[in-house]
Each structure stands twice: as structure tokens, then as C-alpha cells.
């Protein structure tokens, strides 16, 4: 059973004609990496999969029903999105920010209960930001804010994780920790789709890869079929050297 599937999907990138129709089926337990140069439409694809943006053509199926027909609240119980950039109009504490992940589950008259708090605090603990719980988010560093945003989605506990560059702003240790968290989610039966700029993270942690080209063409498949040096050099227009470390390929950009 697929949790998320696209049928003849073409995403709506302004000023771009045509492109490959995406027919992707994402099953529980899979970790997908979306790779592509700047402006290829990675974020647009993620927002289209989340139902925040209408596709140019085709459709997205969530649990075998058309995404556009589902109520937002129901979608939010199945599907969580880590945004690339966040705006905070009004100051809020770290704990309050994580708690809004429970919003889809609470009825309008319901206040957050002990269980909601426990989930939010566990998520903060898991992302190593529990000590910041009473700080205002606006006073945190970029990496700390990124971890709070991931903790919010962890509190939301969706079946499908859509993460837009989840390792943005993170130091090396927390990059690994976040990728390990994504892998752990997949082992527990969730599906994970993330946009990445770091080929090496994709090579180490993803089992499926989607390559998105600036002209709208795309190809996808298992990691080993996709992470071919010549294809990647073509994708990024950048010469690469490949070495193997710890059983996984490591791609290094080289001159020329």
C-alpha cells in the first residue's frame, strides 16, 4: 500500500513549460531524497505533495484518495512538513512552538492536555533542544530554530514526513542526528521525503532518489541506480570525484 503517490504530476514552476510527468509511488518505510540544483523546483514539489500548492496538471494521492479532496485537518494528521524558511510574526517560546504540532488532533474547544505536553517535551528532548523550552524562538541560533521546527513535526507525528533541507544550519553532529531520526521514523513505518543539497547525506541515508533538472525533467528510482557520477555531474554541471568511505560513496566537487 502506498501512502503517497503522484499521477502524471507536473508541478507549477513559474516560467517553465512542460517537464516530465511524475508517477511516483512512495511506500511506508521508504526514505526518498530529492536532489537538484537551485531553482529546479524541489520546494515547489514538496509543497505540491503537501497540498499547499496546486499542481499544473496531474494529481497527488494520499492513502489512495485525492489530496485536493481531503480536509486540511485530516491531511495534517497524516502529513507533516518541515519548512525551509520560517516567519515568526509574534514571539513564542520553544515549547509553545512544538505544541502547535498537536493542533490537528485537538477539537476547537479542547485545550492542550498533559499528553500533548508530554509529546512536545519528548520531541524537544529528542532534538536536543529541551533545555531551551522557555526561550523565545526568535532568540535562538539558526541551527537551534531548525531543530525546534523538526521537533514541531515530530510532535505532529505524521505518517509522511516532507522535509525541506532538514539539515540546513545544522552542525555536523546534528546533521547526522537528524538524518538518523528520519531513518528511525522510516523503520517505524513512516515515509520520509526530503530535499537535500548534500549528495553524501543522500547516499548514506536515502533508499530512493529523485533527480530534478532545471528544465523540469526528472528521473527517479533506487539510490544505487540514481547516484551515478555522470548523471550527477550532468545534474549539477559540476565535475565530481567519488571515493568510498565506510561502505558509502562520497562525492567531492573538483576543479574543471
Amino acid at each position, binding site marked *: 500500500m502506498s501512502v503517497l503517490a503522484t499521477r502524471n504530476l507536473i508541478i507549477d514552476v513559474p516560467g517553465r513549460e512542460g517537464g516530465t510527468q511524475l508517477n511516483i509511488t512512495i511506500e511506508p518505510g521508504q526514505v526518498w531524497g530529492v536532489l537538484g540544483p537551485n531553482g529546479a523546483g524541489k520546494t515547489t514539489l514538496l509543497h505540491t505533495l*503537501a497540498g499547499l500548492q496546486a499542481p499544473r496538471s496531474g494529481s497527488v494521492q494520499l492513502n489512495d484518495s485525492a489530496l485536493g479532496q481531503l*480536509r486540511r485537518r485530516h491531511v*495534517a494528521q497524516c502529513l*507533516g512538513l518541515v519548512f525551509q524558511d*520560517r516567519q515568526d*510574526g509574534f514571539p513564542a517560546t520553544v515549547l*509553545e512552538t512544538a505544541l502547535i504540532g498537536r*493542533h490537528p488532533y485537538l477539537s*476547537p474547544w479542547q485545550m492542550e492536555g498533559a499528553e500533548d505536553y508530554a509529546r512536545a517535551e519528548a520531541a524537544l528532548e529528542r532534538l536536543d533542544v529541551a533545555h531551551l523550552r522557555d526561550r523565545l524562538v526568535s532568540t535562538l541560533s539558526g541551527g537551534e530554530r531548525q531543530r525546534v521546527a523538526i521537533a514541531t513535526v515530530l510532535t*505532529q507525528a505524521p505518517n509522511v514526513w516532507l522535509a525541506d533541507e532538514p539539515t540546513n544550519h545544522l552542525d555536523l553532529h546534528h546533521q547526522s542526528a537528524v538524518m538518523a531520526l528520519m531513518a528511525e521514523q522510516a523503520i517505524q513505518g513512516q515515509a520520509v521525503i526530503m530535499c537535500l543539497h548534500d549528495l553524501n547525506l543522500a547516499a548514506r541515508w536515502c533508499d530512493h532518489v529523485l533527480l530534478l533538472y532545471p528544465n523540469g525533467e526528472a528521473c527517479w528510482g533506487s539510490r544505487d541506480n540514481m547516484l551515478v557520477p555522470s548523471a550527477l555531474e550532468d545534474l549539477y554541471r559540476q565535475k565530481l570525484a567519488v571515493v568510498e568511505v565506510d561502505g558509502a560513496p562520497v562525492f567531492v566537487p573538483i576543479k574543471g
Partner: protein
Amino acid sequence: MLARLGLPLSLLLLAALASLVIAMGVGSAQISPAQIWQVLMGDSVQGQGDALARTMVIELRLPRALSAFAVGGLLAVAGALMQVLLRNPLADPYVLGLSGGASIGALAAMLGGLGGLAISGSAFGGALLSTFLVFGLAHGSGGWTPSRLLLTGVVVAAGWGAVITLMLALSPAERLPGMLYWLMGDLSYARTPWPPLLLLLATCVVLIPLGRSLNVLARGPQQAAALGVAVRPLEWCIYIAASLLTAAAVTTAGSIGFVGLVVPHMLRLLLGNDQRLILPACALAGGTLLVLADTLARTMIAPEQLPVGVITALLGVPTFLFLLYRSR
């Protein structure tokens, strides 16, 4: 959780009741709280003095105090809603040109020599007209965004301002004081307090279940949509509610400045940003502030009255600056 909401709200409720007692007691003749209690409870009247007190409280001071409370509450709640809608802490109920539209309606009625109800009706019509105008223009051919709505509102308000100045310049001198008082906000026109008071109560009841959605919306429309909020319907709902509240307030008491900007701000600095707490707190604190300001306005240079808008600004500006200076 309930305790976190309960304590500030009970304190504000006590302050609101105290302000109403002060408003009923203070004036050309002082009436003690004990007398007010007797009058309100309908205890038997003994002697001439008490009959006078009864008339003064029941027929004059109580309706005016309740009107002030309702108007202050409406403005503060409308301001808080606009701030969430536009995600801009500087937004106030008038930012979309509503008071300008209402002022033009009211001034036109006054110029035409109409009185009472016609002025209120005309003001209400002007407020709604301005709302639709701003929204229609901001919507344009695409969708509206907060910054576009804000800019359209500011420009339309500036346009109204010019028209108001023009009307004042062309008005006969004997009508000017009334018009100026209306523009600065004045509660002596307020008749029955019940319509705005009921509207305030109904709005609070409707907004409580929306509170958490507003909290999520304050973090941006995309984040809100990703967390299951139907963003566009909610934004429409806020826009209509805030416009209606402001129109009702402006119709009752003219355009009283500052309450709608400062009260939500002060409460956010003191109580945080949970809309479930901020919105009812705004209703209570805005009401209290305007009751006190109106009491000052009618007693400071008695028997003359000051426009209450002057008092709200004179009280509000230093308090607000102090809080802002002290905040993180």
C-alpha cells in the same frame, strides 16, 4: 492550563467591575459604592436624594459607562484580530481605512443637518463601504497578501483624511465643534449600550474555539495550512469580524484612537501571545481603559466635556512607551 487563563482574566474582570463602579460614582454629584449597590439592586428608595441618585446612575451614568466599555472592548478585540490577520504588530482597527470611511459618513450626515440615528447609520454605511473598497482594491486580479492589504488600507485612509479636511474646511462654523468632537471620539452620542455590548459578548464566544487556529495562523499561512488550518476561510472570518466590530464601535462613539493598537500590545507584552487568552483579555482591558478615560473626559473640566479620544491617547502613549522600554 485553565489556571493560566483564569487568573489574568479574573483580575481583569475585577478591574472592569471596579472601573464601572467608579464611572457610576464620579461626576457632578458623588455617589458612594453603597448607594450604587442599593440602586442597582432596586432597594427601596428613601427620600429625595436617593431618587436623584437612581436617575443619575440608571439613566445617565450606567448606560454611558456600559457603552464606553463595549466600545473599548470592541476596538481592542478588533485591533488584536487585525494584528493576527496582517501579522503585523503595528496594525490597528483603523489601519484599513475604516474610521475614515465612517467619519465621512458621519460628517456628511452632520453637514446635511441630520441628527442622532442618521449620523450613526451613515457612519456605519461609510465604514462598510471603506471595508469593501479596501478589500476589493487589495484583492485586485490575483489574491491579496497582508502587505498589499496594509498598503491599500493606508493609502485609502490617507485619501479619506484629505476628504475629511476638505469637508471641515467647507463646513459652516457653527457645525465645526460637533464634527471635531465626533472625529476625536466622543461618547455623549452613545444611546443604548446593548447592541455593541451584545456584539462584544457574541464575538468573544465565537472567537474562543477559533483561538488555537489563530495562534497557528500567527505563524504564517503556509505553516498554518500544513497544520490543518483552512487558511482562507479563517482569514475571511477574521477580516469580516474585525470590520464589523470596528464599524459598531465607530458608530457608537466616533473614531477613538489608540485603544485598538495599544491594548492588545500591552497585553501581549504582559501575557504572551496565546490568542485564547489575549482576545478575552482585550475585551476586558479595552473596556476598562475606555470607561476610565471617559470618566476622566467628563469630569476633568466639568461641566464641560473633553473628547475621550484625547484622554485615551494621553494615557495610552506614556504607558505603552514605558512597557515597550521595559520589555525584552
